């Protein structure tokens, strides 16, 4: 069998698995049988090529089997888990389509035994690395749970989690043929199982035993790590461990002893057999390597405090700034030395690479979130009696980790909304000449410097008239006079708007879409709708790549420079005298192709000196924030650049109109304008700022108000 066939097999099996996991019904335990069979086949298929996939698959078998015992609730969670695991495995396969290159397949058919052994060694080491990392994490979790159990009454969930950790360790260790680890994990698991069934109580001596077992397991794993790294045989279990095993057995009672050292240590019944081929690969390991001293490094992952990653990314941002300052310094720019020039070029390159690495550290693919949506669609479809197919694409698109988490909620709202309002019942679809099964497409892709997430359905589309009727009923608008379709469609984002004829379980009570918009805007993203009557609706979310960096337009206003987030800029124009209008000689407005927008003078609002007084010589930047558009009068646009967002410093919290700061290319601090607040000026009074040193002139406000009122 060639390597490429195996891989194709694994990829196909994964596809099948993904579909099966999504289709699995948590209330039907028999469905898990099929999943387990698939996972076993997958583990076998991935054996030679993707050790991490194999480990993951085996782990999932264990988890699913455990979950079946725990009932539908646990199974539903386990299925969610399996969903994510499938995504990870697909990613792993996609990332390394040929882990050892074409050569791997070749070595396997060639009689070169030595070559194939070396390759297996590397793979085995990978397996051990994963196992050790996972187990260490699990044991850390055990520690946390035990601490809580000691202080509180043991709760069922705590016992369940403890059981699961030992179970997982046992499963993987069995597969890796670590018999002593299996023996210990097995008795501990049996004891915890007795706790779950209520025949033992997790306190006193039992609790101590769990502590001891955890400590002993940790020692064993450390010994395994050392053995793998030094390429030596695994040490035999020490007398203490054996004594501990016997103590645990004694505490558990008779039946555990019978179960001891089961034929197949792995959780699922058939898994051991399915993986029977594997141990041979493992046996060829360390001892067979020529030099016992050659240090083998286990592939290791560490969990890092997000704060540290952030501070690293932040510092890289500074490095980029400093680098460009050095490069542009007149003394350096004038230097003609080839050596200096080369060094500078090198420095620039390393800096960019570093920035790239830094950015990627926080990025994760959207696949996990997409798969959650798949389950949601399945659930909702069953409840609503509609036939719906979710088609996803671009799962590998990466976004900032925190954003991937934050888009989940809005997506849930939007999908619920689509399923409830957008998609027709099968009969209605048939009448419209559509296939009975509706399709929802969820896709992610990059566009410019942004990530776009698109949710499209092939339902009935937005109903302009019904939206309008509803909006008038709710008092959101007076009449449709002069409203464009886009404006009417945007009404569904208005707070308290809901067109559902009946409040259903699915779409709730009209709190959905305005929350969606708020959440998206909180991420500095934008949402837009396009719809065609009878053919469907598409929601498009445009989001920044990361929350730490924004694209900004640097604008000048007198002596000051400000950064306007590019995402909120609609356009910028040089105004014609004919476009400028004033009300009561003070409130300035601009007539932008028929749309009358209030005009904010930055220099008056912020009391900057030296700004251009005549609007016709200046530039109007039209921004959109909080759902409103407003023109901001600035002297000029200086440049467009990416900036790292920083807070203004702890002592200046709550400064109005400024959302943060950034270090500019010249090392100075630039302020990032809070467009939402600026746009919000349009219809509310300025907050009273008694200590503010800037008297607000009425002209800075769009509506004429007396100064006294402004100050009030």
């Amino acid at each position, binding site marked *: 069998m060639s390597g490429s066939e195996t891989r194709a097999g694994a990829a196909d099996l994964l596809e099948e698995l993904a579909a099966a996991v999504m289709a699995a019904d948590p209330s039907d335990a028999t469905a898990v049988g099929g999943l387990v069979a698939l996972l076993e086949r997958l583990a076998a298929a991935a054996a030679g090529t993707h050790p991490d996939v194999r480990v993951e698959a085996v782990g999932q078998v264990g988890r699913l089997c455990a979950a079946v015992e725990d009932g539908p609730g646990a199974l539903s969670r386990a299925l969610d888990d399996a969903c994510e695991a499938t995504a990870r495995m697909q990613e792993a396969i996609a990332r390394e389509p040929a882990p050892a290159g074409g050569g791997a397949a070749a070595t396997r058919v060639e009689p070169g035994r030595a070559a194939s052994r070396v390759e297996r060694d590397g793979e085995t080491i990978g397996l051990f690395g994963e196992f050790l990392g996972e187990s260490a994490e699990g044991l850390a979790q055990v520690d946390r749970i035990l601490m809580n159990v000691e202080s509180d009454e043991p709760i069922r969930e705590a016992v369940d989690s403890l059981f699961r950790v030992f179970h997982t360790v046992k499963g993987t260790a069995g597969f890796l043929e670590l018999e002593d680890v299996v023996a210990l994990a097995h008795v501990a698991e049996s004891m915890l199982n007795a706790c779950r069934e209520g025949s033992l109580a997790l306190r006193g001596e039992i609790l101590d035993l769990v502590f001891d077992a955890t400590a002993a397991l940790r020692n064993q794993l450390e010994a395994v790590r050392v053995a793998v790294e030094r390429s030596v045989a695994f040490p035999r279990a020490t007398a203490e461990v054996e004594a501990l095993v016997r103590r645990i057995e004694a505490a558990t009672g008779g039946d555990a002893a019978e179960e001891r050292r089961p034929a197949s240590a792995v959780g699922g019944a058939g898994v051991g057999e399915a993986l029977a081929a594997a141990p041979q690969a493992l046996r060829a390991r360390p001892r067979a390597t020529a030099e016992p001293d050659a240090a083998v490094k286990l592939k290791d992952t560490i969990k890092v405090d997000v704060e540290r990653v952030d501070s690293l990314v932040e510092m890289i941002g500074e490095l980029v700034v400093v680098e460009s300052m050095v490069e542009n310094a007149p003394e350096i720019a004038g230097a003609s030395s080839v050596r200096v020039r080369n060094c500078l070029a090198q420095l620039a390159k390393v800096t960019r690479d570093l920035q790239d690495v830094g950015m990627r550290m926080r990025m994760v693919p959207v696949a996990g979130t997409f798969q959650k949506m798949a389950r949601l669609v399945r659930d909702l479809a069953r409840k609503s009696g509609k036939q719906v197919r979710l088609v996803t694409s671009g799962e590998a698109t990466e976004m900032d980790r925190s954003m991937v988490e934050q888009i989940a909620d809005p997506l849930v709202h939007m999908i619920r909304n689509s399923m409830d309002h957008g998609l027709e019942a099968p009969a209605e679809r048939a009448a419209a000449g559509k296939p009975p099964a509706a399709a929802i497409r969820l896709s992610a892709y990059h566009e410019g410097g942004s990530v776009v997430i698109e949710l499209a359905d092939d339902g009935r589309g937005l109903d302009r008239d019904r939206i309008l009727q509803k909006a008038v009923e709710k008092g959101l608008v007076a009449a449709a006079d002069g409203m464009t379709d886009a404006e009417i469609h945007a009404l569904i984002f208005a707070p308290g708007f809901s067109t559902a004829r009946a409040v259903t379980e699915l779409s709730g009570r009209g709190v959905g879409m305005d929350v969606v918009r708020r959440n998206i805007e909180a991420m500095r993203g934008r949402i837009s709708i396009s719809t065609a009557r009878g053919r469907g609706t598409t929601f498009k979310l445009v989001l920044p790549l990361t929350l730490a960096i924004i694209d900004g337009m640097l604008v000048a206003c007198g002596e000051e420079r400000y950064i306007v987030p590019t995402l909120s800029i609609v356009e910028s124009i040089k105004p014609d005298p004919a476009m400028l209008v004033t009300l009561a000689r003070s409130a300035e407005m601009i007539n932008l192709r028929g749309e009358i927008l209030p005009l904010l003078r930055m220099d008056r609002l912020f009391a900057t000196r030296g700004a251009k007084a005549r609007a016709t010589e200046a530039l109007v930047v039209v921004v959109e924030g909080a759902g409103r558009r407003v023109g901001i009068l600035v002297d000029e646009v200086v440049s467009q650049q990416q900036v790292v967002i920083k807070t203004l410093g702890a002592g200046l919290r709550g400064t109005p*109109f400024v959302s943060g700061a950034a270090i500019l290319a010249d090392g100075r601090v630039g302020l990032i304008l809070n467009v939402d607040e600026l746009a919000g000026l349009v219809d509310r009074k300025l907050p009273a700022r008694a200590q503010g040193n800037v008297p607000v002139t009425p002209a800075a406000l769009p509506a004429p108000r007396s100064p006294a009122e402004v100050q009030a």
Partner: protein
Amino acid sequence: MSGSIDTAAQAAVPAPAPAQDVAALAGKYMTFKLADEEYGLQILKVREIIGLMDITRVPRTPEHVRGVINLRGKVIPVVDLRQKFGMPPCEATDQTVIIVVQYAIGERTLTMGILVDQVLEVRQIQAGAIEPPPPSLGDAAIDSACILGVGKTDKRVVFLLDIGRALGASADCAAAAA
């Protein structure tokens, strides 16, 4: 280093009300000048001294907040101590510096720059040379609670500042008004 500053700052905030034992105030102080007056900062609260640099004005903040600076990638506010204390402002000279201080207010650790006319020296002030602060400061824009004590050395008088109290208020007024 920074750890010890944090602890010192934290420990000092709930610390001595003016009337308390002034002996505990003995220690090293960094002294600086505002006009012809001399002030002292507890040395553990001083992080560094930097020359005057470009300060970006932040609109709609209290008068004494001069703006923000880039302290090696960190954005920190700078307070003009003259204006904070209600003294007439003056043009910057080549002696003008920013002292970066760090102190804790409740849960927050604040790093701020204070703009002063001139830094003098680091001086050991003995317990015997410290008097409790005067009970009332009359019309001054500074609260007597901000003065830990009054040090006397070489016939000169140094007002020992509780910088957390002195600036804490200014930090809060920006936040409170929001």
